[in-house]
């Protein structure tokens, strides 16, 4: 499997990662090498094998519907990059 420049750019955008134009060839080689490694999986036939998402196949434990959290806005926002009137700020979004 080899990823070309446009595929690297597409993935980088999907993951919202700015990468330098000059680094793309390098990423392209490295990611392709990793995918080659990953593709060794194809050496085994897994037809009919159920996927295992968790090692311990247990059901979820559900919690009761109780309010256990109190307002900690100030505490949480103390180190936030940019806030105003209790809101987190991002550059204006145009919908």
């Amino acid at each position, binding site marked *: 499997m080899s*990823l070309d420049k446009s595929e*690297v750019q597409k*993935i*980088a*955008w*999907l*993951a*919202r*990662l*700015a*990468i330098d134009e000059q680094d793309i060839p390098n*990423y392209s080689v*490295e*990611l392709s*090498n*990793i*995918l*080659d*490694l*990953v*593709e*060794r*999986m*194809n*050496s*085994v036939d*897994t037809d009919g*094998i*159920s*996927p*295992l*998402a*968790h*090692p*311990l196949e*247990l059901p*979820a*434990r559900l*919690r009761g519907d109780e309010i256990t959290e109190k307002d*900690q806005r100030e*505490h*949480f926002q*103390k*180190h*936030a*990059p*940019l806030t105003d009137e209790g809101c*987190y700020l*991002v*550059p*204006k*979004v145009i919908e």
Partner: protein
Amino acid sequence: MHQSTLAQLSAALESKEISSEELTRLYLERCKKFNDSLNCFITINEDEAIKKAKLADQQRAENKHTALTGIPVAQKDIFCTNGIKTSCGSKMLDNFIAPYDATVVEKMNAAGFIMLGKTNMDEFAMGSSNETSFYGPVKNPWNTDYVPGGSSGGSASAVAARLTPIATGTDTGGSIRQPASLCGITGLKPTYGRVSRYGMIAFASSLDQGGPMALTAEDAALMMNVIAGFDERDSTSAEQQVDDYTKNLNNSIEGLKIGLPKEYFGEGLDSNIAKIVEDGIKELEKLGATCKEIELPNTELSIPAYYVVAPAECSSNLSRFDGVRFGYRCDDPKDLSDLYTRSRGEGFGKEVKRRIMIGAYVLSAGYYDAYYLKAQQIRHLIRDDFQNAFKDVDVIAGPTATGTAFKLNEMIDDPVSMYLSDLYTVSVNLAGLPAISVPAGFDNNLPVGLQLIGNYFEESRLLNIAHQFQQATDHHKAIPEGFE
């Protein structure tokens, strides 16, 4: 005093041979003295540690203490610590002061441990050499030209150099066991779900597990008694009853059936390492264990499957680092996309970006079945291999790592070779099993670890075997030159 185990320190504190404050100062001095050369701490928590130590002495004076009250510890910088920087080895969180304590931290604080500081690690626990840290590489105290392993390299190096009596680590693909092996200490990766993941910054949620990194199996057992157990804040934590991990330490291992996977002793394993590991296993035979060759036929596939599952989960887990609510934010973002791409592009290091991109790719439309689903199927095969093996044997033994520590910068530009060096550790994570690495000897003055893998929730048995091994051997007592 700094060469003591937890049990010895506990006795010294109990007999008033030393106070917690004296002990804490002693270790803090060592941390400060050696951190320049080893770089194993990102944060040294001096003032707070001394304050807590004084409080511990008071609690001891008032008889309101546990056996561990006043004993210093180091926390891997992946665990959130309220009011203290929690960087996860990343520029992304260089300015992040965690607003809460991880469950592990909360439990250790409650038991009276004194936190000396936060240990260095590979960025977001992604690495096997501790070279991906934003804070620079950690050095191996056995030879500072060499890496300590990763990702819990700071903890391993600090324990080996006796800068802390014990430390926490986390293990997603070998991150406790491999650095333990490379630094000559004892590291236990518990069963998935045994130790709460709440407050432990997630790398790959279905693989991550926290555990102790210690000088001895007995010390690891003492820490496990504190940190193991069900946590209602972690949906994946097991409701299974917790053992007293010290209870069986002194049991005989007479009659123990050990499986030796032929895949763990094949090509790819350094012959010197093989010899040391085999000697270690002979030692266990002398103690009454019997050995038998077994097969784990899908071992080879564990690395490819791991490098799908772990990046997929990490690409999603690390999406929350977006420069909006906490952590790094780029300067003067011109719009929302710019805020996202630059904050993430500048805040994450190269290895993290590689893994995020691999993860995004394998989950993307059209590739899910070929990669992610396939990897989860292989995961099933790997778990079944282990379960078949455990029908015949009690534990599985083999090397922890393919070699001893390698030189700094030796593999940094070759991620695939680095990934392949995790051959003996990652399948344990895919299956969710417990495993321990114990010092088994030296090759060229660099430590070699013996790995023991147990069935689910058999930490007690692993600790028992490791303890018996350490009663019969001295490898774990060796101290790197210059750190005596």
